[in-house]
């Protein structure tokens, strides 16, 4: 089971991203609808379609032909980024109406549930997860926020530059290990 964390600046640019694989097993809620998928690889575009619809994660046997449309860092990663990006629509909608920082399970897409955390500086932390872990995610977000604020205290760090601090990374990973 994996979690994907993205820290997005107000201009939608990711300044930090993390993929965390937890040891917990995902509960299999797969529908019979998504079983027995046809091997769909007649053209390069079918690969995109397969990936975007989430079918590539459902069928393990599936593989993509046509290397010309291979996404950077693997198709799954690209799709997850697309989902995170698409969930901004809902997040922005909700954050205009509510002042809560922690938006629990604000969006769902394919098998992913999206939770978000919005800092007062309009940074958005987006977490893609598959299972429900409300308290853990809340604690995790608060940890990340604290770490983020500490990073931003650095006067040479601007709001839009990517966070490359190793300390930040290790601490976020530790927190993810703890809570997720």
């Amino acid at each position, binding site marked *: 089971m994996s979690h994907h964390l993205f820290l997005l600046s107000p201009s939608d640019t990711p300044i930090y991203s993390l993929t965390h694989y937890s040891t917990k097993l995902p509960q299999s809620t797969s529908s*019979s*609808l998504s079983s027995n998928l046809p091997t769909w690889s007649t053209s390069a*575009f079918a690969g995109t379609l397969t990936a975007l619809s989430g*079918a590539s994660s459902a069928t393990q046997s599936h593989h993509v032909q046509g290397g010309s449309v291979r996404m950077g860092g693997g198709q799954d990663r690209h799709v997850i980024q697309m989902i995170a990006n*698409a969930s901004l629509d809902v997040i*922005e909608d909700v954050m205009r109406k509510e002042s809560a920082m922690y938006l629990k399970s604000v969006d769902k897409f394919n098998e992913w549930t999206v939770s978000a955390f919005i800092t007062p500086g309009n940074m958005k932390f987006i977490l893609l997860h598959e299972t429900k872990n409300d308290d853990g995610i809340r604690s995790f977000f608060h940890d990340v926020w604290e770490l983020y604020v500490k990073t931003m205290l650095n006067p040479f760090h601007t709001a839009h530059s990517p966070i490359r601090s190793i300390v930040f990374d290790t601490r976020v990973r530790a927190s993810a290990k703890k809570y997720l």
Partner: protein
Amino acid sequence: MNSHAFAALAHIQILVLPVGPIPRAAFEKYAAEIRTFDSIRLGDIPAGMKDERARFMPNPLSSGNLYLSYPSHPAPPRHMSLSLFRPSHFTLGIIGVAACSSSYSLASALKQFENTVLDISPEGSTFPLAKVCFAFEDEESAGSTGLRDTLPGIVSIPSVMGNKKLYIGTLLADLCSHILAELGRVYHVLESPIGNEYLNSAIFPILPSPSEMPLSLSSGNIGYFSHSSQPELDSSSLATPGIQIKRSSTAGPGISHTASFIQRQSTLGPPAVRKRPSAIGAVSSHGRLYKVLGDFFLLAGRTEDALLWYAEAIVLFKTGQDPVWHASVLEGMATVFVLDTWSAGQGLQSSVSNNGVKEPWADIYEQLSQAVALYHKAPVPSELSQDHSLLALTYCTAVMRQTSLLFCTWSTKGWGALAFASMLQPGSTSYTQKTTSDSSWTNLERLSIMSGVSRSQIANTVSQAHGPWLLHLGPHERLTILQSMASIYSSLGYKRKEAFILREVISCIMDLIVCGREENDVLWKSDVGSASIGNRSENGDEVNIVGKGAVGVRQNEILAGNQSILKLLVRACKVLGVDLEAVGVAKATDGTSSEIGGGDSNDCPVEDLEGSADVARESFGWSELQVGVIREAIAVAEALPAPDPLAVARISLSALRTMHSVLASSDQYHLYQTAGRALAAMRRRGDAPAVEYWAGHPIMSIALLPLALHRLPIENLFSILTAKSSATNSLLGGITDPFLYNPRKSSGPQSKNLIVQGEPIELTITLRNPYVFDLEIQSISLSTTGVEFESSPVSALVIPPNTLYSITIIGTAKTRGTLVFRGCIVQAPWGAPREFLLPVPTDADQNLFARRQSAVKCEIGRTKYWGLDSRPWEKDERRLSTLLPSLKIPPQFLQCVVVPEQPLLRIRWTSLTHGAVMLYNGEESTIRLTLENISALPIDFLRLSFEDSTIGPAQEALSEGELSVFETYETEFDLLHRKALSWRNEKEITNILPNQKVVLSVTCVGKVGCAHGTVHISYSQVNREHEEPVPASEVFYTRQLSYPVTVTVYHMLECHDLRLMPMVDVNYDDINHRASNSVHLLPEVDDPAEWCLFAIDVRNTYGLPFEVTFEREQAGTESAAVSSTVPPGSMSRIILPVKKFRLSDDQISQSIPTLSDRQFVVGKSKLSIEEEQAQRELFWYREELLKIVSARWKETNGDRHGYLSLRQQRLTLPMLKVLRTDVVPVDLTLIMDTPDNSLQELDYSGGKYIASPNEMFYLRVEVANSSLSPLAMALDLMFDPAEQVLSEGVLSNMAIGKLKPDETKAVEVPLCFLCTGRFEIGAEVRTTGTLKDSRVGASRICVSVREDG
């Protein structure tokens, strides 16, 4: 959207088909007329049947409606399994539309219609249930088509008929009646035990074709209705033998279920039905049968019955055995509920507004959620992909139905009539488009608040449909589902989600295209040899490869589809912050530079400037996603069926332009190569270059390379021709500006760039390549205005990656005037040329630029707009434009003044080797320069000026003003009268004709400290009679030729220790003893009191002996000269007698002159008046002395010679006293009485008197007044030793009286020397009446008193 209408379950689908040769327009017209009927009142349905077909017939006077929908195509054959599960999915009726004319008869139309129906309805399908053909009569062939003869199955509509619409409505109602009747017949079959078995046989059962129907079960007497594709049903005669048979056969199972019965005893009906089928002993439950019954009732518009039977079915499905059918029942019930609410509240929409706690639609929503969940969890028993596909389809349709419920409610501002209308007939109302067209957040949110449906709820609902199961769907259904999702997201204002779905839509379409192409390839390969059209090449050239000798044929391409796909791409990319249209398409087809130079180019370059200013701004978006989406976009554009190289090039170049900062280098290479390929393809096709220059602003700067110095024209005023040349001013002026820092000087008009007509100039253009690849530029040319300028463009340029790169362009101005370089016209390979302006920034521009920069920097950390609002093109509109005024002043450009043609001179030969001169200090030498006029113009103005390395420091010292007056004079004198370089005969040359040579002689004087000098030759053609006079020309232009000279000056002779001694003191004896060379001069000294000795040491510091000659030229004396050879390293003393002189008071009272005309000389000396007087006296006497005495040197072993400067020597006050004669000359003589009583002067020799002791003498003191005024004087006499001298009278303060000018008075004093020895007698004359230092004259004599004297 039509297929996802909420109430689709209640729709009877009718397909409208063209039949026979009917023009498209005519068909559209007739079809539109038919389609206006979207519902038919139940009361209008003719109900004539009495058998089982009447089961679904409406009751008389019932108030419901039949809802019709007109799909554009029938359901695909793959969906046939759904025919019992969801009959509303299929086209139940078919209407053919034929245009009958004289040439096309009704019979042939009917035949064709039958064939068409056969074609489109799949083998073994139950549907369509009814068909009819409408034959519309042409206007022109009215009456002649034989419409009179009626054929079964075709209805002719004459053109003369008045109310066609009403007639069509009647015909439609008729058709519906047939459909309902057929529904009854189908149900009748299902009702039988064997039908029920079939119904329960699979998850999506299918009614087998009659031939496969087991005979044992159909029990022989079942007169099964004929094949569904050919139902024996026509409009004219309803009664056929077959039907009669059927009626008798179906009497068994469903006898009592006539419509009227159910209507009347609705509470009794269901239990009876439940009992009876189960009694028949079928193993299967009757749930599905009831559900089908409910579906049919729903289609028939009888909602109450439908609800009844649905409820029955629900009860049976509660066990959970059949979740799919269960869910379908729930969907049906939801539809029924909506229909009921609609018919209940059609008149009064306010009454249905929510007054309860729960929203009215919540129940329906819950029901649908349940259905969706059931579908989702439903197990698929068989491994048939067919079932997967259909299940996925029903699932997605259910989700879309649920979404549609919410969306319709939301978009129509709440649960009301409009919502129902849009749920029933989504196409009929444009209200949705109207409300959601304004996609601002406030509007959307307003809708949410009014309707009570939040947008995220809708989004969550619709996102259920998205999942891996989409792959199960057939391509068409998938496209439909995705497209509906995208449009819902779009209406909700969820742009990013829309972009996500759009990407899927695109890839779905592309998938179809690619697969279709592969099939086509196979197809085409098979028929080799025929005149086939190969669609082979990727680059868009359809060339038939296989056919021998065949010609490449271009298919008739329809580009509209391509353009739509590209539009989708652009839309999806824009959401992610990638502007795929950043590079414009050139408007001008020929793309010449002249067109670009004018018109709209005034504003675009300014934009460019601003664009370059804002490089620092933050980037928008998710760069990884952007890169991915760009790659995909290019892949799509390349794979389009008729490849669009322009689009490919445009996309890749736009990506390069806007995103090169985030693109990896390999991506940049790839994009660049892709664009190159695409452009090459366009070139092969012969298209016009259509892509604008894309690579940002490539020009960093344009600079005019300065002309070579000898070609540079210099502007001069004509007035200097007439004015007297005052060399002093120019040389001594130094810095004439009185201010140390003059702000006006720098802010004045910038020095103009002068270039000469007809002569080539060079411009340096600095280009920038921000990319990681070699940027190729096809050509660069200059864009100029003003004077005609001829230059050759630079072509085929390659700029190395990530560098600044300079190129040089050479050009020539053709006429005189002003030339403006606006910028460059740059053309990328196979693109349209584009002009880039490059203004010279003024102060205001710089200021604005800096402010803009700081504004951008200031805002960079803050976010006023976020999310999609912060995309660059959105942000710029709002932010910076309001913050700062834009540039209003027209930009300034690099400007040149083109001056008329100028002559050109060159130095052909000089007398110097390597341009070097070696001189002794004070030596003079001549440099000869041979000049040649190599132009075709004569030169009539020639002027020389010089410069050497001593001038600069001297001028600096002068301008600092720290020098004393005396030093200032010396420096100035040095500058003026001892120039290192000079041109003696200035008038010798005036004109140089073309190709003429002249020789100039320049004198060079050795001056210590001079290391190098320069000869500047300014020349011009001033008088140009042959040209038209330029009226306002106050200037003319000269050119300057410079000849640098390296000067080495050896310093060899030094003068020291100038001394002036009174002649009286000279001991002649000593001199006689020493063999001095000056001895022979002494004889001319008649009176030692009138002379003094000038002595100076000359030292030779050089390695060669020099002969030094000092000359005296003094008025009243003969010239004299003293020479001495000074050996190397030694020193010689030169002695020269100089007659004393006295300068007039007027002369010495003058102040020390300054040779320059400097104005602001403030006397800094703190000297008293007397001291100043003394200084002036010293100065003037020294000047006089230097005029008298001059020194020359000569090489002893050679003939080099020169002058020796004495100006370093200083005159001191004692020297002055020696040099100056007194005002009152005092003449002392010793006389003695001779025996003959006459007075006789004593012997005078060797500078002294010789006298005897103890004898009486007279000392005669003669005093003359040589001044111009009378003086009263007194005389003092002194004797040394005084005690050995006897004298008479007082010796001091003897009054002489007042002497007039030139008057002489003598005083005689008797005296006697008392012993032998040397005596000195001094006399001093004072003026009386003045207090101090009144001595005006003095004299001394020596007396040697000897016994033998």
